């Protein structure tokens, strides 16, 4: 153990101030969430009579949650249906994104060919153009592909590789010695075998990072479904909440809050376990990009 320095009063004060700011910002950040959770557990009468910060009388009052999951009168889609839609979209677009993104990254990293940097530049420049700028024309493209009003439009839009995922793959590929490729070639493997049997499995950590980052992005997205797929039957969890918020009245507000809790629960729980990956992905993607 190292000898402890005695703290000067100034240092102690500075430390105390730093902690104070941390505690204050944490309370500010957590208060809306606290209010959400306690309110979602209150019975209708209690919800109207108490303010939004006091805890519920019964922490285990699940009536709002049951009502959110099994609504008495259905307005459009149920939570279950929305989760199913979101799940289908997530799985399909992640599989495509991983496959084609890693293939593009492999080609760009392992082969020297003309246009290689052009492709990378195109990804950096064009994909950086926010989707919100091109809805008018992207909508026309989706119409041409007969994809409007269906969740497959979202799968197509989400499965195009983004520059962050691409850079995560390329960065990881740089760490895989090309001697692996050479060795496999001497043993008789062609490039497809090298990629699918060796490189792709070795990319697992990079794939994990991309999956986690994109899952957060896709699961939480609102803009694309709002603009391209407003159909209630095709609603993602985002659109389901949006629609529900449109129908709400005073008595059903607590039910909406319960639905919100159900929607944020998977990502928040996932985040607690996988935050390391998210931080690493954000740092490598945004700082080195």
């Amino acid at each position, binding site marked *: 153990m190292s000898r402890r320095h005695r703290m000067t009063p100034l240092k102690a004060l500075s430390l105390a101030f730093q902690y104070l700011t941390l505690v204050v910002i944490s309370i500010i950040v957590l208060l809306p969430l606290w209010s959400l959770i306690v309110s979602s557990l209150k019975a209708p009468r209690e919800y109207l009579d108490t303010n939004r*910060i006091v805890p519920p009388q019964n922490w285990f009052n699940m009536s709002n949650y049951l009502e959110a999951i099994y609504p008495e009168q259905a307005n459009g889609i149920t939570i279950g249906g929305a989760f199913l839609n979101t799940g289908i979209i997530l799985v399909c677009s992640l599989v495509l994104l991983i496959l084609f993104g890693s293939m593009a990254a492999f080609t760009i990293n392992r082969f020297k*060919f003309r246009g290689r940097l052009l492709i990378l530049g195109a990804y950096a420049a064009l994909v950086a153009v926010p989707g919100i700028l091109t809805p008018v024309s992207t909508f026309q493209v989706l119409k041409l592909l007969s994809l409007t009003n269906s969740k497959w439009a979202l799968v197509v839009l989400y499965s195009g590789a983004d520059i962050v995922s691409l850079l995560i793959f390329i960065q990881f590929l740089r760490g895989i010695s090309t001697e692996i490729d050479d060795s496999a070639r001497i043993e008789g493997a062609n490039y497809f075998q090298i990629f699918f049997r060796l490189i792709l499995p070795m990319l697992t950590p990079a794939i994990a990072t991309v999956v986690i980052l994109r899952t957060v992005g896709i*699961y939480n997205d609102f803009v694309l479904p709002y603009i391209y797929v407003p159909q209630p039957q095709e609603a993602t969890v985002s659109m389901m909440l949006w629609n529900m918020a449109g129908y709400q009245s005073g008595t059903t507000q607590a039910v909406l809050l319960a639905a919100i809790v159900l929607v944020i629960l998977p990502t928040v729980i996932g985040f607690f376990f996988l935050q390391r990956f998210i931080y690493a992905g954000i740092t490598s993607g945004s700082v080195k990009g």
Partner: protein
Amino acid sequence: MTLDAQAQRKLTIFVFLIVPITTLVVLNIYPILQLFWISLTDFNSINWRRAKFVGIRNFVDLFTFDKDLTLTMVNSLYYLAGSIIQLTLATWFAVVLNQRLPGSRLFRTILFIPFVLNTVAAGLIFRNFLELNGAFNDILQLFLGPDFKVAWLDSSKGYSNFSLAAASVWRYLGFNLVVTFGALQAIPQDQYDAAKLEGANQWQQFWRITFPSIRLVLFLQFMLSVVGSLEVFEVPLLITRGAGETSTFAIKMVETGFQNKRAGTAAAMAVLMLCIVVVIFIVTRLISQRRDRENTGGLI
């Protein structure tokens, strides 16, 4: 059939890139090009045959008739101001957390939570918080008396844009924090050790070592915030449904293009915004490259 190595390589490059490049062209390049074309027509977003070439009339319209556009530009200043506060706070907290005080990880986790929330959920949570009967007023009543009540979200009362900017800070603070924190962690610890040996205090350490090392990352985040504040869409739409005073450029554009079926005008708006964004990106690139040369420890 056997191919020589050269042919095999070419085939691999082709097969591996055909799908990614096709999606890049169809979903990114083509829409941007088409946007320019639509902006020169009176296309009604339904019938191509009736679309007529109208030259720059859509652009002239934007600049001459649309008073709403001025409002949206002013509104984006609220978000810009918000993001400057957000960046300052994020830098402060990143520096504090970077000292590895006990509990650092917990605080970082807490501050990052809003970023992983579903967008709609986050918007509704904040709306619920700031409502007339919401928790925020409840708390203020504890301090300011039971009669205190402010309609934070009522766009006619003048607070709504502040509230929306605050919502945006609440949601994205953690993101900036993590980016800046990552840049801080890339600074070698021995630089601080050397400075401490020479007797530099914390304040000097920050301005001589920390700040120069993260200056570029902060600058890039700032420029992204500028672009972001021009493109605000979800936050007002979700919290105030983009009503009246709180409308933004992107909301107006989507309204014009889809609800009002004036694709030509909407495309002109998008082109205008695209040009602004491109100019900002080019400026950013130029400045960051110069900075990068000046300070070889740059992370870009």
